[in-house]
C-alpha cells in the first residue's frame, strides 16, 4: 500500500509543478518589444528594474541634432570609463553631416554604429528581457529616440584580485600562477600560456536563475571527441538555480555520488590545467571560481603533482613512490597497528612486542578505542585549525598537539606508540597533493580501523578487497578509475609509479584515447 501512496504523492507533486509552469508561462511569453518611443520605453524599463537603487538612468541629447538619448547602467558594475570617455563624449560631440534629410531609423542606426560610437563590443537587442538582463549583467544600454534597436555596450568591470600563487597547492619549483575568480582573466591566462591555435574555449551557461558562464577548454586536435560529447551532455543536464562554485558542477557531473573518491580533479594551478589539456583531458572553468575542474581523472593523477615534471626524473620518481607509500600509511597505518597488537602479536619481532606491551601497560582501553580517541581528536584539531583565523589556528595546533601528545600519554589514556602511529598517519595524509584525496583516505581510514578491530589482518585484507572492488567498478567519464594500474600498457606505466626521463615519454597517455598521440619526436 505504501508505494501506492507514494505514487499518488508523486503525481500530486507533478501536477502542482505543471500548474506552476502554466502560471509562469504567460509572463515569459509576452515579449515586450521596444517601441522606439523613448519616454514609453524608459517607463517600461523603469517599471521592470527601476526600483533598484543602483540602476542609473541618464538622458541627454545627441550633439546638435537634438535627438534624445538615454543610457541605463548599473552604478559601479558597468565600466565607468566607457560611459564617461566614450559614450557620453561620442554622442555629445556628435555632429552628423547635414545631408538635408533628417537622420531616421536605418540611417541613424548606421551613423551611430559606423561613425559615432567608438567602442568595440556592441550588441543590438529589441526585447525588454534582453535589455534588462544585459543591464543586470553589467552592460550599458543605449536607447535612442526613434530607434527600435537598443544598443548594449561593454561588459561588467568587476574588481578582481591579483594573480597569486595558489594557497592550496604549493610547489617549490614551477610557475607561480593560479587562477582567480574572474573568468575572462583566467581564459586570457590560458591563452597566454598555451600558445596553440587548437586550444578551444567553448562557452555555455549554467544556472536557471543566476546565469553563470562556464567554459569547456580542450585541445581540438588531441581530445577524444566521444569524451567531449559526454562532457557537454552532462553539463547540459545541469538544471539548478545557481552554482556558487565550480564544486557544484563537480558534484553534478560526477559518475558515482556514493563513492568516497573524487572523480573530478579540481585545481587552482594553471600549469596543471595546461598539462592535463596536453594529455587530452578537458578542463572546465566557472566564472566566479578560481578552481578549474579537470575530467576525466584516474586515481594515479590525484597522487601526482606538477612538480614531478619540474624535478629531475630520479628525484621525481622517488618522491612519487614516497607518496604512494604515504597514501598506504594514511589509509592502513592505524588499522595495521590495531590488527597486529590485538590479533597477531606473534608476527612482530619479539623485542618490539615487549616494548610495546610495556608502554601499553596501564592503558585502560582496547587498541580500537585508543586509536579512535586519538584519530578523532586529530580530526577535531584539524577542523578547528582550519576554521579559525590563521594566527589563532596555529596556536590551536600547538596547544592541541601538546595536549594530545604529551598529556594524554602522561594521564595514561593512550600509549606513546599510539601517538606515534597516529602522528605518522596524519603527516602521511598531508603529503597527498590533492586535498580531496586526503579527505577520502581519512574517511576510509576509520572504516579500515573498524574492519581491523573485528577481523584483525583478515579484516584489513577484506577491507582492501572491498576497496579494490569499489575502485575497479568506478569510472570517471568512461575511463576506469584505476587506470593505468590495470589494462596494462607499457606506455602509460612510464608515468605511473615511476616518472621516466622526459625524452622517453614520447606518447600521450593512451588511456585517454588521444587523437594525436605523439608528444615528442
Amino acid at each position: 500500500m505504501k508505494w501506492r501512496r507514494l505514487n499518488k504523492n508523486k503525481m500530486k507533486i507533478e501536477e502542482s509543478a505543471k500548474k506552476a509552469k502554466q502560471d509562469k508561462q504567460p509572463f515569459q511569453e509576452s515579449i515586450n518589444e521596444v517601441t522606439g518611443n523613448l519616454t514609453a520605453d524608459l517607463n517600461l524599463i523603469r517599471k521592470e528594474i527601476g526600483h533598484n537603487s543602483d540602476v542609473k538612468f541618464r538622458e541627454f541629447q545627441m550633439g546638435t541634432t537634438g535627438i534624445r538619448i538615454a543610457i541605463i547602467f548599473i552604478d559601479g558594475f558597468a565600466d565607468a570609463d566607457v560611459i564617461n570617455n566614450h559614450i557620453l563624449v561620442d554622442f555629445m560631440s556628435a555632429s552628423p553631416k547635414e545631408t538635408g534629410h533628417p537622420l531616421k531609423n536605418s540611417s541613424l542606426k548606421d551613423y551611430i554604429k559606423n561613425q559615432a560610437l567608438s567602442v568595440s563590443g556592441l550588441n543590438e537587442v529589441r526585447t525588454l528581457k534582453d535589455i534588462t538582463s544585459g543591464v543586470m549583467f553589467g552592460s550599458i544600454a543605449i536607447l535612442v529616440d526613434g530607434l527600435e534597436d537598443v544598443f548594449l555596450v561593454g561588459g561588467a568591470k568587476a574588481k578582481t584580485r591579483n594573480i597569486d600563487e595558489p594557497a592550496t597547492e604549493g610547489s617549490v619549483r614551477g610557475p607561480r600562477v593560479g587562477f582567480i575568480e574572474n573568468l575572462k582573466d583566467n581564459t586570457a591566462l590560458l591563452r597566454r600560456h598555451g600558445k596553440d591555435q587548437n586550444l578551444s574555449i567553448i562557452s555555455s551557461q549554467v544556472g536557471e536563475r543566476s546565469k553563470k558562464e562556464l567554459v569547456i577548454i580542450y585541445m581540438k586536435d588531441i581530445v577524444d571527441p566521444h569524451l567531449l560529447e559526454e562532457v557537454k551532455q552532462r553539463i547540459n543536464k545541469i538544471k539548478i538555480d545557481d552554482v556558487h562554485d565550480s564544486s557544484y558542477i563537480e558534484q553534478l557531473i560526477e559518475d558515482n555520488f556514493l563513492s568516497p573518491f573524487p572523480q573530478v580533479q579540481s585545481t587552482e594551478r594553471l600549469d596543471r590545467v595546461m598539462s592535463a589539456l596536453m594529455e587530452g583531458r578537458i578542463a572546465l572553468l566557472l566564472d566566479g571560481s578560481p578552481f578549474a575542474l579537470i575530467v576525466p581523472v584516474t586515481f594515479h593523477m590525484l597522487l601526482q603533482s606538477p612538480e614531478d615534471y619540474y624535478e629531475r626524473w630520479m628525484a621525481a620518481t622517488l618522491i612519487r613512490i614516497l607518496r604512494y607509500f604515504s597514501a598506504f600509511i594514511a589509509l592502513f597505518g592505524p588499522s595495521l597497528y590495531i590488527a597486529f597488537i590485538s590479533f597477531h602479536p606473534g608476527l612482530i619481532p619479539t623485542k618490539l612486542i615487549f616494548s610495546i606491551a610495556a608502554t601499553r601497560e596501564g592503558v585502560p582501553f582496547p587498541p580500537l578505542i585508543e586509536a579512535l580517541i586519538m584519530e578523532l581528536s586529530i580530526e577535531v584539531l584539524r577542523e578547528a585549525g582550519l576554521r579559525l583565523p590563521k594566527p589563532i589556528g596555529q596556536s590551536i595546533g600547538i596547544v592541541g598537539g601538546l595536549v594530545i601528545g604529551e598529556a594524554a600519554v602522561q594521564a595514561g589514556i593512550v600509549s606513546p606508540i599510539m601517538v606515534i602511529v597516529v602522528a605518522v598517519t596524519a603527516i602521511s595524509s598531508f603529503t597527498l597533493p590533492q586535498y580531496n584525496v586526503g579527505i577520502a583516505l581519512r574517511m576510509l581510514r576509520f572504516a579500515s580501523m573498524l574492519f581491523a578491530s573485528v577481523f584483525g589482518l583478515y579484516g584489513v585484507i577484506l577491507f582492501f578487497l572491498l576497496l579494490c572492488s569499489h575502485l575497479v567498478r568506478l569510472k570517471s567519464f568512461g575511463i576506469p578509475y584505476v587506470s593505468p594500474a590495470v589494462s596494462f600498457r607499457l606506455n602509460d606505466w612510464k608515468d605511473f609509479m615511476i616518472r621516466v626521463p622526459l625524452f622517453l615519454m614520447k606518447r600521450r597517455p593512451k588511456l585517454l584515447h588521444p587523437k594525436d598521440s605523439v608528444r615528442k619526436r
Partner: protein
Amino acid sequence: MTSSPLDRITSYQAVMFITNFIFGAGILTLPRTTTEKIKTPDSWIAIIVSGLIITLLAVIILKLCQRYPNETFYQFNQKLLGKWVGSLLSLTVISYYIALSAYEVRTMAETTRLFLLQGTPTWAIMMPFLWIGLYLVQGGVNAIARLLEIIFPITVIFFLLVMFLGMKIFEVDNLRPVLGSGVKPVLKGLTTSSLSFAGFEILLFIFMFMKEKNKVTKVPLLGVAIPFIYYSFTVVIVIGSLSVDAVVSQTWPVLTFVRSFEITGLLFERFDSLILVIWIMQIFATYVIALFIATLGLKQIFSKSTHAFIYSLIPLIYLVSMIPKNINEVFKMADIIGNFSLCLFSIMPLILFIISKVKERKYEKM
C-alpha cells in the same frame, strides 16, 4: 561512451583470468597432495608433465572457442548437443562452479580460523567475504578483470619473495634421488598434479569477451605457463626444504614451510600468517570468477539479465560450503570437485570439438 554494448577484455586480462583461476586454495596443499600418491621426491616431474598436458588441453579449448567467437560455452553447446542435452550440461557445469566457489570459501575460512582468527565462527569469516564478492561480480567482467590485474602482482611477488627468504633451509639432498623408483610413481601422481591445474577451462566462458580473437594462442599458453612455473617452483622449494616425509604429514605444507624459518633483522620475523593473508586475495579471485561464471551461465540459459541470480547464488554457496563437517571432509570435497572437473573438462572439449568438426563437414557436403 560510459557503457559499451558489450564489455571487452584484453588478451592480457584473459591471461590473468586463466592464471588467477588456476591459482586458488590448491597451492597451499599442493606439495602434499602430489607427494601423497607419488611418495618419492619426484612430484615436480609430475607437475611438469601434467602442466604440458594441460597446456595442450587449453589450446584445444581455444580452438573450440574460436569456432564460436561470440558465444560462451553455455550457448554453443546447445548448438552442438541440442537444446536439452546442452542445457543439462550447462546446469551441471554451473553446479560445479557453485561447488567450487563454496569449496574455495570454506578452505579460506578454515585456514583463517586455524592461523589467524582462532575462535571466530566460520560463518562470520565467510559472510563478509561472500558479500564483497557479490558486490564485485555486479560490476561485470571488466571489473573482475581489473581486480585480477591489481591483486595478481601483489600476491605473486609477495609469495615469491617469501619463498626466496626460505631458500636458506633448502637442501638439494631432499630432492634426490631423481626418478629413484622409476617412472611409475610419477605416472600415478599425474592425476593429482593435474587437479591443481583445474581452472584452465575458464577460456570456454571468457573467450566471448576478448577483444582480440585471432592469433591468441599465447593466451592459454601463458595462462597455464605462469601457474605451471609457479607450482614447480613451490613444490621444489617446499619438498627440498622439508623432505618428503614431513611434507606428507603436514596439512598445509606451504604454510609449515614458511613457518619453519625466521628472519631476524627485518620488520617481521615470521611470515606464515602474512602469506596466508596475502593468499586470501588469490582465493577471493578464484571464488569471484567461479561465482561470475555460474551467474553468467544462469543468465544465458534463462536469457535474463538481472542481478537476481547473483543474490540467489550467495546463500546457495554458503549452504554448500557448510556441508563438510571438518577439514578432512573439506579435502574430500576438493578431491571430488577436482576429479569431476578433470573428467568433465579434459574429455568434453575434445568431444565437442570433434562434433563441431563433423557437423561442419556435413554442412559442407550438403
